[in-house]
């Protein structure tokens, strides 16, 4: 079965909570983003996948400076993570349900607004997703056969951001998932050319199997977390990327350099470039672009 769909959606935690001091305009912008995310969910449902391959840059939950691979594939049976705020709030906004543990009362990984939710302190994680292990292993072997020396991990810890996008797009966890981790913010980054080729190899493999797979690329767009540029957004770069994808020229992304990505605050575009490689030069439908004070949020799907 060929790839049944592909979407790109932000994973910014500020889609799920707003700090008390934020303005009404900011809250309206956040709501605009949530609406776009729910519109993307309709596209996911329309594509009717049985498996979602989530391509996401790990935020130091699975990997750290002991080893930080450019790409890695999860090959375990169950992936799980904590949300970015309390599960009741997440359920209210996204409809995502969660696993309750006996004797556990507090599921909030950190007070809202304090970015500790990427910490990996708690083993009893509320968001649990069955993995398509057979297909993950098949993909691992297929990538190696095609010249991609893909690292693998049996640790399926999902950081709060990866959970967030999955909360919106697979709220009932009724679709199996596969996880491909990338390096989107720890330079040196993988080259876009290689990322695009990886996507093409992923597509070849998916075209050979019976599973109905949808690719979900998380992240983006321009933002500079943890740097003196936080609050600056390269909107011109973002819009150029969206125009390129909307006009069916995704292969142009392979011509970018890692410096192009980093200097525009777009390291996470790695996830989108892999997806563009899997989809080929077909037009994207851009549902929305929302500029928050610290990030540009792009919501789109490929018209396969």
């Amino acid at each position: 079965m060929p790839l049944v769909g592909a979407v790109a959606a932000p994973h910014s935690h500020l889609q799920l909570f707003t700090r008390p001091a934020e303005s009404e305009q900011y809250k309206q912008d956040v709501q605009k983003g949530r609406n776009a995310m729910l519109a993307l969910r309709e596209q996911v449902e329309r594509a009717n996948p049985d498996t979602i391959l989530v391509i996401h840059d790990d935020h130091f939950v699975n990997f750290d400076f002991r080893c930080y691979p450019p790409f890695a594939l999860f090959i375990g049976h169950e992936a799980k993570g904590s949300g970015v705020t309390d599960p009741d709030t997440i359920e209210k906004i996204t409809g995502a349900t969660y696993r309750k543990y006996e004797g556990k009362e507090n599921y909030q990984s950190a007070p809202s607004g304090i970015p500790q939710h990427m910490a990996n302190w708690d083993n009893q994680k509320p968001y649990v997703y069955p993995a398509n292990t057979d297909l993950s292993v098949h993909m691992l072997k297929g990538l190696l056969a095609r010249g991609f020396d893909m690292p693998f991990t049996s640790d399926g810890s999902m950081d709060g951001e990866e959970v967030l996008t999955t909360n919106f797009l697979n709220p009932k966890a009724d679709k199996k998932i596969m996880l491909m981790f990338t390096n989107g913010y720890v330079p040196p980054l993988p080259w876009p050319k290689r990322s695009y080729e990886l996507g093409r190899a992923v597509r070849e493999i998916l075209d050979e199997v019976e599973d109905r797979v949808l690719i979900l690329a998380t992240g983006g767009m321009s933002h500079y977390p943890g740097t003196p540029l936080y609050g600056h957004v390269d909107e011109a770069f973002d819009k150029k990327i969206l125009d390129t994808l909307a006009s069916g020229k995704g292969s142009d992304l392979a011509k970018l350099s890692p410096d192009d990505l980093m200097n525009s605050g777009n390291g996470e575009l790695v996830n989108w470039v892999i997806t563009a490689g899997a989809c080929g030069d077909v037009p994207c439908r851009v549902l929305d672009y929302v500029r928050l004070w610290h990030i540009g949020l792009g919501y789109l799907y490929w018209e396969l």
Partner: protein
Amino acid sequence: MQSTADILKPFAGEMRHLTSALNMIASDMIRDRKLAEKLDSDPDYFRKNYPVTEEELQAMRDRNMIRLYQLGLHPFLLVRFAGMMGILEYWQALGAPGRGGGWPRNM
């Protein structure tokens, strides 16, 4: 005016995070919430267990975000470290434009 590449130079250009011990310490703090408390109560623990310089350790003990950025603490880990220290508006300490837009104020 400085370019984005200039401002990101310690991080995206020189990639100081690749060689700074600060990142191993902060990576371990993500997995062990008691480790951060040792910064104040037992700084020798870090001298014994990590190849950290005095300058790096002092910047961490001072919660000096600008210095930590310049010394090569990876920005993601800097955010995490700031959060663990209860510094929510970390970008203000970095002189970042934040909500006001515009360019960094004091780098």
